[in-house]
């Protein structure tokens, strides 16, 4: 399985949501229903493959379980492929965890890890949370909240959702525009 090298653009990151479950297609290898759908980017070209769970496990070496919730699949996928450019050595000064250790079981070691691994976590969070990257919910009173959501971020959130949709529809022109709008909104 190939992965776009170098730093991915937002479009690539979102388009790379290559896992989906559907019930209509047949496996490319045998005749069983295909439940694993892979989109590979080879030499800049998109290649789609549809496999049943068995063939995906044997030919791709992927741990695919029946009816695995989509975010587990996404997490597994991101676990296996993110942080490729990152030195594996950095460890948290508070809890000692490294990115490689986090990738092994998917659990962080302490509250400081979110800040420390922010860059690597961001694409993972986007995939697991429908493109969501910023908290919009309740804020504890002692952190200056009153249980009221941060409404000023709502617009950016809307833009992010639109971006996700644009990428899904492969409308990259619009996606690029939306990305710029989000950047602008975040900087202001």
């Amino acid at each position, binding site marked *: 399985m190939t992965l776009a090298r170098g730093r991915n653009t937002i479009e690539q990151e979102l388009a790379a949501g290559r896992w989906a479950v559907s019930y209509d297609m047949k496996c490319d290898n045998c005749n069983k229903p295909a439940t694993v759908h892979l989109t590979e980017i080879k030499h800049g070209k998109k290649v789609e493959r549809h496999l049943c769970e068995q063939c995906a496990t044997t030919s791709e070496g992927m741990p695919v379980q029946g009816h695995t919730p989509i975010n587990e699949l996404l997490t597994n996928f991101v676990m296996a492929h993110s942080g490729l450019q990152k030195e594996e050595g950095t460890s948290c000064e508070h809890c000692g965890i490294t990115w490689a250790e986090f990738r092994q079981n*998917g659990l962080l070691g302490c*509250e400081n890890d979110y800040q420390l691994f922010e860059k690597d976590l961001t694409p993972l969070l986007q995939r697991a949370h*429908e493109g969501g*990257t910023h*908290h919009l919910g309740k*804020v*504890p*009173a002692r952190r200056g909240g009153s249980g009221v*959501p941060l409404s000023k971020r709502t617009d950016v959130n809307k833009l992010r959702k639109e971006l996700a949709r644009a990428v899904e529809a492969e409308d990259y022109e619009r996606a690029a525009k939306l990305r710029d709008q989000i950047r602008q909104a975040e900087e202001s």
Partner: protein
Amino acid sequence: MKLSDLTNRAGEWLRGSGPMSEIVISSRIRLARNISGYPFLTRISRHERQALEKRVREVVLNAQISPQTLYVDLETAPEIDRALLVERHLISKPHATAEGARGVAIGEDESVSIMVNEEDHLRLQVLRSGLQLEEAWEQINEIDDKLEAKLDFAFHPRFGYLTACPTNVGTGIRVSVMLHLPALKLTGEIEKVFRAAKEMRLAVRGLYGEGTEATGDFYQISNQTTLGKTEDEIISDFKHLVIPKIIDYEHHARRTLLNDRTVALDDKVSRSLGILRTARLMTSEEVLFLLSHLRMGINLGRVKEMDIRMVNELFLLTQPAHLQKLQGRKLEGDVRRAARADFIRQKLNGSGNS
């Protein structure tokens, strides 16, 4: 309040009432919280873990989360008690079998439970019968505020509430609705539910949550996204988009059965009742399926003389740990299956008529 007080009755969520209760068994909201200054449980030392458990236990017991609160120390509780709490949906399976200092606080009617030192330092849960998501949110939000006044929860302006697993970060909220969908199963249309759930990025699981199969036509639907949406948005999507759609499918399938396949429907229900009333050896899985059909029969008016509440109770009281607690001894193999069949016959036929 003692643990043994729980055994022979069902919690609030099995009352069999509440909005849409013919299809929606229960509504559950869970919040994941960690305490700032302590490592997450993957990296915590034995000593810190004990200190954390002690501190949280104290706060939880003094926070008046319910008129009476029971705290169970799970490190020392016997296996059967831990299994009982799993069957009652008060703790998760991993929490029951984990090691080290951990516990659970349980509110009076069992609608509230707070797991201490599970995957996160605290897992708050509110479980209510029928479709009561807004009520559940109101209740859990209030409890969260009470605890927050005493505990400094790990929070980051961008990431929200910080959790051990990044799939829970942000709101830390997991909304789950347990649905009884026997007609969709019988008409072979259950795939519709999976598709609707997938479109909305929701997970479908079995009776006991993560990693369990759907048995007895019970399905648990939960949100996956916890970051980038408000709690209200997540709950409102459930209440207004997802659940009504699935309820609609099930109603439609039930009408089809009732109108076009009446005899087949009655046959299914009568056979289930017949086996429940006469069998001598029963596994809990078989009981789930038979009770599922009986429950549908009652809801569709095909079985008149029975109460939905009793059927709901049987779902719980015939589970292995409950059965053994009620009998007051360890039961295995055929002895347990026989005890289960006896118990059901007694409940369904009335005493002395087995």
